[in-house]
């Protein structure tokens, strides 16, 4: 479903060239939930941006659902939903509903489809009470729920989530985790970046560890526990970074 082949990404500054990703290779199968682990600046966001067609690789190629991210970006965009970390990517002066309607329109959804999708998401995330209020007055958790709803409004087959639970309270995080389980049951392919190891353990089938632009591990979570003789993902992650070797 997602195939990343020998991808290198270099950013040219005024004086120097920075290698954000260095010959990255990995694959995520259909219906798989893959966790992406790495320190800040490891290259997680760059990798997700390349898969999302927002950036082009300097070397190598990426195929999503059989389409090339370079040549067939438009087809890929219809099939994926992306939520980047940090800001929620919503318009403060529009209501939650207007935000969702706007993005549904961008994805070419009809009015009826949009209404059904919004009603469904409003129930799933418990947003009914505040969806007609402007985003500017929302709490962080409310914003994040609308942002997630925006990401999946067009029912994408592939979902890329960059630290989606950052700043969420426990209740909102739980609602979100339940939603990921639901998406998993529907057979969606998900790449999920997070700092929270428990979340990765709880939600993901496989894990990808990235360090200084290089993948230091990719594989099944259970297999990793067996290999490392530990079920403490935090410990495994730290020891892998310390060793800095790829398996």
């Amino acid at each position, binding site marked *: 479903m997602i195939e990343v082949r020998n991808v290198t990404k270099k950013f040219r500054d005024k004086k120097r060239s920075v290698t954000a990703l260095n010959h990255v290779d990995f694959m995520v199968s259909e219906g798989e939930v893959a966790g992406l682990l790495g320190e800040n600046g490891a290259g997680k966001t760059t990798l997700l*941006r390349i898969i*999302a*067609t*927002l*950036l*082009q690789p300097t070397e190598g190629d990426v195929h999503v659902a059989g389409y090339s991210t370079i040549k067939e970006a*438009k087809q890929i*965009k*219809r099939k*994926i939903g*992306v939520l*980047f970390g*940090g*800001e*929620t*990517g*919503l*318009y*403060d*002066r*529009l209501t939650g509903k*207007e935000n969702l309607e*706007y*993005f549904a*329109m*961008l*994805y*070419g959804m009809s009015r009826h489809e949009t209404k059904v999708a919004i009603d469904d998401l409003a129930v799933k995330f418990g947003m009914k009470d505040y969806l007609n209020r*402007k985003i500017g007055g929302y709490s962080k958790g409310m914003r994040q729920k609308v942002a997630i709803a*925006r990401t999946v409004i067009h029912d994408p087959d592939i979902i890329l989530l960059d630290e989606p639970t950052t700043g969420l309270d426990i209740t909102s995080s739980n609602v979100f985790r339940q939603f990921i389980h639901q998406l998993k049951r529907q057979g969606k392919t998900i790449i999920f970046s997070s700092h929270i190891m428990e979340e990765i353990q709880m939600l993901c089938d496989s894990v990808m560890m990235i360090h200084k632009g290089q993948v230091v591990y990719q594989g099944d979570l259970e297999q990793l526990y067996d290999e490392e003789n530990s079920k403490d993902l935090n410990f495994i992650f730290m020891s892998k970074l310390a060793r800095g070797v790829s398996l």
Partner: protein
Amino acid sequence: MIWKMYKKEMTDALRDRRTLLLTAFLPILMLSGLVFFYESLLVPNTHESYTIAVPAALDKQESKIFSDQLHFTVFPDPKEAVNQGHAKAALIFDGSLNGLDHGNKKLTATIYGDSLSQDASAAMTQLTSDLERYKEEIVAQKLSSKDIDKDVLNPIQINKEELSSNKGNAASITALSIFLPMMIALSIAIGGLPAASDMFAGEKERQTMEALLMSPVSRGKILTAKWLAISTMGVISGFIAVAVTVVEIMFLTEFLKLAFNNNDQIPVIIGASIIMITLFALLIGAVLMVISIIAKSVKETQSYSSPIMILPVLPVLFLSSVGVNELSITYFMTPVVNLYALIKEMLYGIVDIPHMLITFGTTGLCVIIALLLSRILFLKDKWILSK
């Protein structure tokens, strides 16, 4: 799709208090202040009175020489009185004015004052004029007593004939030809700025740009919708500027409104102004868009935009001293300057179609260039993705 995106951008922009403030309220405030400032420049100083410091009181006959505007007050040190701000000017004679009627041949009158002050300068001019008139009377009397025609002292009579057809309202038209285009240009730039900075730099900051670029809509369509929304805000601001200016001038001024008298080209002026405001707003919209794409934040956009805000005022320096018949084709070919040149011509009642077409054409060409540049930038990830 572009229309729907444009509608969303307009809704978003019109809900922003800062945008509304800069698009509507600020131009109204600026314009009102400037209308009254320019009106005050045109009001003749006939009703103004000035205090003149003198060392000794003038007698009745001496007082008759001077205009009623001048009020003479005795100060022990008249020069010091002017320096202290108690009087606008000081007048000191080295003898008696009446003495000139009684055989004295010469009298020196010294006027003291700060000519950099408008009031002091007006008082000094009035004093000089009154004394010159009195001097001519004395000379005429003395020549007459010796049977000599007074014209012997004026062998050449100089006459000036005004050729301008706007004799009565020339000053009003001149003031308005500087003021009106400056306000239109400034209002369009100020009106478009908040929307421009919010729609690119702001969206990069809030990461809505990434969400937008992730949609299957082409970047060209996104850019067009945003450009039209920014330009619309500029057009709204420009039209508010014109409407407020015209209404305030017509109903609240006495002298500025003379600029509209005897102008039978009003429908053409309105039509050309609509085209000009729209084209200029499209140009400024595209330029502001380029700046906002390059800037990393709203704050940075505002810093980069400062020179753009000065640009609309610059033509005043080139055009304020140029007569309407001296406006060469270069003025109509130069962007921004052509806005001033065209409005000046139209206010003088001149409708020159080639000049209009050149103005519209060159502005349109600049719009295309700025738009192409913004498109090139918008297609590059380096400029539109947040770090």
